[in-house]
């Protein structure tokens, strides 16, 4: 009886929820209040102040970037502070950097800035502190950025620098959730001057940031990240060309044009690279964080601490899963890197082959651009980069690289085909050699919508993959019309197809839908890297042991532990001997405590220029 009543209550609850569900705004309901229809031509009115290039250049001259660096990294040596300063969107030394002689550099020169402002009609009346124009309007500009203490610090200094040039900055510190929201702040170009950071990559990309058709507006559904509204045809063409060609020198030349135009127009003021700080107990050898190489564990097999058979690395965030396909958090990728390292490294923003025989470049024959004939109904990548079923009237790139309209008659297009061969001797930690079947399994799972993967961009643009039988690797064919600036780097990872699971099944036979919850994938993956994961105590630590089958021999230190700690206790644990290494994802910067400990000889610190760079975007148009 009681059970019946309980079921009755539950039933009523369900019915009530259904009723409530039905009462929800109907799926085809019209909005209750329509205030104004969207203006499709929005953001075509030049900003009354900032559309004048002289004002933007003046602001660049009035910006003392070194002082900004010193405000946030006061403990860094001066040489390093100087090294952090940026003149364009790439740091010096990057393979795509244009060189000082090919860009316009704005050294700190308030006099030059003042002269440009005078020329632009913004003059400083006697006794006034803020410039004004002939109409009596004062030079006030809103400056928006996040509430992060780091930005509050340098923004306050920058405000004073602008004030010294007679520019009145109204500083607004807003929550990051609004500033970076999907439908607020930057995404809606709701700023005049706006500061945030981009993450510089070894491949500069830049199409979504600097090309004319990537300016977000109501007309294009707010697509793109060119929040400045900067449309310079030469720069736009150059950045697209840089990303459409596979020839390295052509890429370099196009990025040179982009940087020249960017620094001439000043749609954004690049400021400085953020630092990445690392700290380790004194005596640790083999640990060498390098700019451009995101995964600082790239050489973990060489790490050695005299008198210790275990090295302890502190993580302030625990990996959620070691299934790399669904978990993209940096800490998870690092924890996985111990057992499944990357096939390449990107030290100093360049590429180095580690586990592959060579990069698959056009120059060395590893990749080829085949001429293929396509006809109506074929799947290709169109001129916009979208995967389409070819129909008359569509724009595609022909074999010569020209954008043409498909008339319905067969047409020749480019098809990129790359072959990746791995070095000999790579062996899984259970003693089974790496095989092409392991790549095949990786590709199969990555392209299965049931796997939980977030993006299928690569899969959708893949024409086919042939797994090699005479070597360990594969030959990847892209859809006709697709080009990838990183085409020469490996695409697919590896999973141990041979692995027998606890329930007796073989991994290769397990449906993709189960992978995210499979302990052998999410918690106890096996690999072929320097270490093997032997235990994961949730909330506490991941314990690794040397992989006896590592292709480069035994790691210098037989045991490795990733200890889960809190940011509040990180430095105390390092100084107290509980952890040996703290890395950039834990340390916000070089603290006085760490500097003192280094001076006392108990620890060693490293500060390198990170990929993240601060800049001030300038909105060139208003709604």
């Amino acid at each position, binding site marked *: 009886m009681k059970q019946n009543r309980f079921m009755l209550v539950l039933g009523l609850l369900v019915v009530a929820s259904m009723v409530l569900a039905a009462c*929800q705004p109907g799926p085809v309901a019209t909005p209750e209040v329509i205030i104004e229809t969207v203006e499709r031509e929005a953001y075509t009115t030049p900003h009354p102040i900032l559309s004048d290039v002289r004002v933007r250049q003046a602001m660049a001259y009035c910006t003392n970037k070194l002082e900004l660096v010193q405000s946030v990294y006061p403990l860094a040596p001066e040489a390093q502070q100087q090294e952090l300063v940026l003149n364009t969107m790439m740091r010096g030394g990057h393979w795509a950097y244009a060189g000082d002689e090919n860009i316009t550099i704005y050294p700190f020169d308030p006099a030059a800035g003042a002269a440009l402002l005078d020329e632009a009609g913004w003059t400083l009346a006697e006794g006034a502190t803020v410039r004004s124009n002939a109409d009596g309007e004062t030079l006030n500009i809103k400056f928006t950025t996040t509430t992060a203490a780091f930005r509050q610090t340098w923004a306050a200094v920058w405000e004073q620098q602008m004030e010294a040039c007679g520019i009145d900055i109204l500083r607004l510190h807003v929550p990051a959730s609004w500033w970076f929201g999907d439908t607020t702040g930057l995404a809606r170009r709701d700023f005049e001057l706006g500061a945030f950071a981009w993450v510089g990559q070894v491949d500069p990309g830049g199409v979504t940031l600097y090309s004319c058709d990537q300016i977000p507006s109501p007309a294009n559904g707010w697509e793109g990240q060119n929040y400045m509204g900067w449309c310079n045809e030469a720069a736009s063409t150059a950045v697209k060309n840089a990303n459409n060609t596979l020839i390295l020198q052509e890429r370099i030349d196009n990025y040179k044009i982009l940087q020249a135009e960017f620094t001439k127009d000043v749609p954004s003021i690049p400021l400085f690279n953020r630092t990445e700080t690392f700290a380790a107990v004194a005596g640790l050898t083999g640990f060498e964080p390098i700019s451009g190489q995101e995964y600082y564990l790239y050489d973990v097999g060489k790490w050695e601490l005299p008198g210790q*058979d275990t090295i302890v690395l502190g993580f302030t965030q625990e990996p959620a899963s070691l299934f790399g396909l669904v978990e993209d958090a940096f800490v998870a990728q690092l924890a996985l890197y111990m057992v499944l390292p990357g096939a390449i490294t990107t030290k100093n923003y360049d590429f180095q082959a580690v586990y592959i025989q060579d990069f698959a470049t056009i120059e060395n024959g590893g990749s080829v651009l085949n001429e293929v004939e396509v006809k109506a109904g074929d799947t290709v990548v169109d001129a916009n980069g979208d995967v389409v079923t070819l129909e008359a009237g569509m724009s595609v790139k022909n074999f010569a690289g020209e954008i043409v309209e498909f008339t319905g008659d067969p047409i020749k297009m480019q098809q990129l085909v790359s072959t990746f061969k791995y070095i000999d001797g790579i062996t899984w930690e259970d003693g089974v050699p790496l095989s092409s079947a392991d790549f095949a399994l990786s590709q199969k799972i990555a392209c299965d919508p049931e796997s939980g993967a977030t993006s299928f961009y690569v899969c959708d643009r893949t024409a086919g993959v042939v797994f090699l039988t005479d070597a360990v690797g594969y030959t990847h064919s892209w859809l006709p019309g697709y080009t990838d600036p990183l085409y020469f780097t490996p695409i697919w990872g590896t999973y141990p197809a041979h692995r027998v699971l606890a329930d007796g099944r073989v991994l290769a036979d397990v449906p993709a839908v189960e992978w995210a919850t499979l302990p052998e994938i999410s918690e106890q993956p096996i690999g072929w890297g320097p270490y093997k994961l032997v235990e994961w105590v949730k909330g506490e630590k991941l314990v690794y042991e040397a992989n006896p089958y590592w292709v480069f021999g035994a790691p210098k230190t037989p045991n490795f532990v990733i200890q889960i700690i809190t940011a509040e206790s990180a430095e105390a644990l390092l100084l107290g001997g509980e952890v040996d290494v703290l890395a950039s994802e834990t340390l916000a910067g070089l603290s006085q405590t760490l500097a003192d400990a280094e001076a006392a000889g108990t620890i060693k610190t490293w500060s390198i220029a990170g990929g993240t760079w601060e800049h001030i975007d300038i909105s060139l148009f208003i709604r």
Partner: protein
Amino acid sequence: MVAYLVRRVLQMILVVFISAIASFALLSLAPGGPLAGLRQTPATSRFYISAEDIARIRTKYDLDLTIPVRFTRWLIGVPRGPLVINGKEYFGDLVVGCRQPIEEEFLNDRGKYETRVTGCSEIVYLRDLTGRSASRGILLGDFGVSWRLLRDRPVSDLIVSRLPKTLQLIGLETLFSILIGVPLGIYSAVKQYSKFDYFFTSLAFMGSAMPTFFFGILMILAFSILPRNAGLPYLPPGLSESVRDYTIPLLGTITAGSASDRVLHLILPVSVLTLVNVAFWSRYIRSSMLEVLRQDYVRTARAKGLRENVVIMKHALRNGLIPFVTIVVFTLPGLFSGAIITESIFSWPGMGRLYLLALGDSDYPVAMAVFFIIAVLTVIATLLRDILYTVVDPRIRLK
């Protein structure tokens, strides 16, 4: 008594149900979650999030369903599809959500663009839920799967991994703080305005006024970092155990993971929490005892010529402890919820940290599970308090 208990249990169920609705509604309305920032994820040459990708993720985490439907699936695991009676489907066409909402831009009265959902391009019907994974419901002990902290794996795994450490820490702290705080409070009350009373009252004020994070850092500095650097015996600065053996002067080599290692790691966090809570308990007992000591029956007992010990322990203490007993049961939810700040300062892998991480990472299934369990424990504690009242105070009868 039985009627009272039945009534209270029914009330408890209602309170738990309301708290479940409240926690679910609040966290459902909170920003963040698996979709947050996805559209702002920088596109690279090999990674791009499409509208279909977002729709798929919405479906995976039930975010395409209306809040009431999500709530019942979270609470009791239904609906899982249309009602089937004798092989015939009912309510299959009932709209339960939207997989792909239509969003449009509008200018609001402040001249800002605003995105609003104006319709749905792909409706979710009840029949679409057939075969979709769902928990059995939190009422049946299935807290669902974690969105972030243990991606796609059971929330209960996370709780089970943290709970023993929290029980250890908070259990010991509660035990020690009561064992120390109660006698101190009694003594202070009996010796009111003595030097001892002034001294401990001052200490209690300091203890209750000192922020745990500051006190914790001071303790780490004083008992760990500085003595270690000076070559003196020291305590581990944090964690629940070491990962390798270490040597402490006078104590010798401590084996990682051994009982002595764990005890040493417990000393600092338990001490910080105990010292802070001793202040609370001693102040509480002191005021309670002072009130009792002023009662006529205590004066009568003394007038009868009873020894002071008997007066205090037999006549005053039993009555003085009545309010104490009613408060002590509320350590029950605390045993589960942990101590957020102390666990953070000492890298203690307990429930407090888990709760903080869940909120920080918008892992709402985890946060809701913790909320729910704390709510249940709180109402249980309330019931226990009422029952204990009748035990410690014979004047009270529950009806």
